[in-house]
């Protein structure tokens, strides 16, 4: 008989009792294996989900990118690297990548800058900060499309934004029809929508900075700015890394705002990479080339994330 005793951690001891030969059938069913199975069962739903909805589509997109796929004619022909050659020669691609870069840089700088500013302001122990935190966070939970449609009305030539501008005697531009103002509008609409999320992350990080460090700095005569630069920023740098990775990846995937507000126009000034690949695949029925653009997008996001991750040693303090 094996000795079956439950220890404090709930593990079962399956060691044979002294003087007994271990029965062959039970030999492999060790506590380690039972734990392994339990663990695997726990993660299986997530694994299946990831396999079905992330890994499989990812593989399929690479496969499709090697094909000329005309949905209407029902043809699916292997063309090797033709789509990748087309990508290199695509006359529209430089302007698309430029728009994507403008949008991403604008969004990341504005979003992180504003989120940090708001977090620092709302981290003060003043009355009413809870109300403002709620106010700034509330757009995060609003439906993206509803939010964008309402902004579409506000940004019309005779819309609310210019109405307010008119009240103070300013003559606002036709926001969504000028090349620069359209890009700026899309960025600002997105920043206001999501700045609350980064703000909350920064707030949590700020509240984790030990108060005695500031005290010590004050004793040493450090100014507010020096305290911010030398204490706050280094101590919240892991959060800055996290938010910048999330925001960059999100910026590169912007779609709904463009589709609702500008449809890539005026001209092609707001045609960013995801919108361009949507046009190619779903509007122009070139699913093969659309998939190639997805592979490009994947490569860009991956590269930027890896670069940010690698660079963390240079500037992220207190990494665990």
């Amino acid at each position: 008989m094996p000795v079956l005793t439950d220890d404090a951690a709930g593990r079962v001891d399956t060691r044979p009792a002294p003087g007994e030969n271990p029965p062959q059938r039970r030999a492999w069913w060790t506590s380690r294996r039972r734990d392994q199975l339990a663990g695997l069962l726990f993660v299986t739903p997530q694994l299946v989900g990831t396999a079905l909805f992330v890994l499989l589509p990812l593989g399929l997109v690479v496969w499709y990118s090697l094909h000329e796929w005309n949905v209407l004619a029902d043809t699916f022909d292997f063309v090797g690297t033709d789509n990748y050659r087309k990508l290199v020669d695509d006359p529209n691609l430089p302007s698309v990548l430029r728009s994507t870069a403008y949008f991403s840089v604008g969004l990341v700088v504005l979003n992180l800058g504003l989120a940090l500013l708001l977090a620092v302001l709302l981290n003060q122990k003043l009355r009413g900060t809870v109300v403002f935190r709620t106010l700034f966070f509330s757009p995060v939970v609003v439906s993206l499309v509803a939010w964008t449609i309402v902004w579409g009305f506000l940004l019309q030539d005779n819309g609310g934004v210019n109405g307010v501008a008119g009240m103070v005697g300013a003559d606002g531009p036709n926001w969504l029809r000028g090349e620069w103002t359209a890009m700026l509008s899309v960025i600002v609409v997105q920043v206001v929508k999501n700045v609350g999320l980064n703000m909350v992350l920064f707030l949590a990080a700020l509240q984790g900075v030990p108060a005695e460090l500031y005290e010590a700095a004050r004793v040493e005569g450090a100014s507010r700015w020096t305290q911010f630069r030398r204490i706050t920023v280094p101590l919240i740098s892991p959060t800055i890394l996290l938010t910048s990775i999330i925001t960059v990846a999100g910026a590169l995937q912007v779609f709904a705002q463009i589709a609702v507000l500008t449809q890539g126009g005026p001209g092609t000034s707001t045609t960013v990479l995801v919108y361009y690949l949507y046009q190619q695949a779903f509007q122009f029925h070139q699913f093969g080339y659309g998939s190639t653009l997805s592979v490009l997008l994947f490569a860009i996001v991956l590269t930027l994330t890896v670069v940010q991750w690698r660079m963390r040693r240079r500037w992220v303090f207190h990494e665990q």
Partner: protein
Amino acid sequence: MKTRLTAVVALTALLGLSACGGGDSGGSDGPVSLRMTTWSANEAHLKLFDEIAAEYRATHPDVTAITFDPILFESYTTTLTTQIAGGNPPDLAWVLENAAPDFVSSGALVPLDSTLKGTDGYNFDELTPAATKLWQRDGKLYGYPFSTSPFGIFVNTDLVKAAGAKSPAELIAAGTWNWDNAIATASTVASKTGKAGLVVRDFDYKGWDNLSTVWTGWGAQAWSADGKTCGFDAPEMVEAMTFLHDAIFTAKALPGPGTAADFFAGEAGMTITQISRASLLEKQTFGWDLVPLPAGPKGDYSVIGQGGMGVLKKGKHADAAADFLAYLTNPTNSAKLAQFFPPPRTPLLTAETLAKTNPLLKPEQLQQVVIDGIANGVVKPSHSGQAELSQAVRAALDPLWKADADVKGVLDGVCSAINPLLGK
């Protein structure tokens, strides 16, 4: 052990996959259920379709269900092609005129001639050649043009009167219903009432093909009939677009870019749209009129938009779907559909017949706008690869919608942008 467990996980994933992909693969022998995609979610339209479908099923017990699946108009073709790409094609689909060349030429649709001609009492010869032209390839019909809807101008007579402008009806009576006078009326409405003067519906400085309702009056066209030569830089087009540009930025007769105005909500004096939109006026409190498009420098003209119904080759029950299409569009049911969609059948195209089912429109409106329109109408621009072309034109036309635009320069730019695509 590790490999065995990995295998189990992989197997589970595969089983999950095959469960997703394996369903609903019935052949055409068993019970048949049909699905038709439409861009109309109008209750009255769907009710009529359901009634006709119920009558059909009464005599076809093998067809267990016929569903009509409305898709948003703005993204209709995109959604339809995505359904086809995703392996979930409908059995029948409405096809817009601008997607017709792609659908007809690609082989996505089943030829309908033999089914339609082989159906008793179908009277295939009643279909007017003007209506079926767009839907044919190599002498075969790939789509039934169930709606051939001419563009006209709806007028908010209350607003025009309030502005003290000459109404289109007066101008028609005086024989001076032309573009100059139409813009003068629109401009007066805009300046006197603060509402919009004239709205080219669905244009909104993006849907440029709707401007063909204007430039056709100048004899301009987006591209030549064979689709190979760009028409945007032609003198007629430059003249038409200069006129339009002045109407927008000088006379302020049309709402400028980025300004929304809905005629059917009483926000505009006039709107150019298809007569099938008349149903939107049923419960309207303002007085309204429907008039033909004004004469351009080249005289009277009309423009039509079309909708076709086709049977998808990739659908599961193509034969049953074609048979239902023949029933849905037979002379009896065509007459019923005519209350919403101007039909392609000659005997139905009389003011008396149409008046019975279009109580909102007067016989002379039906004669002037619908019957004459269908007989002489120019179909809105369509071309194979339309989506890509359309996007290229939109982007290249954008610089035109500024007060200081160089019209000729912009239109030359449109041609340089689309020439490579027209040559494909």
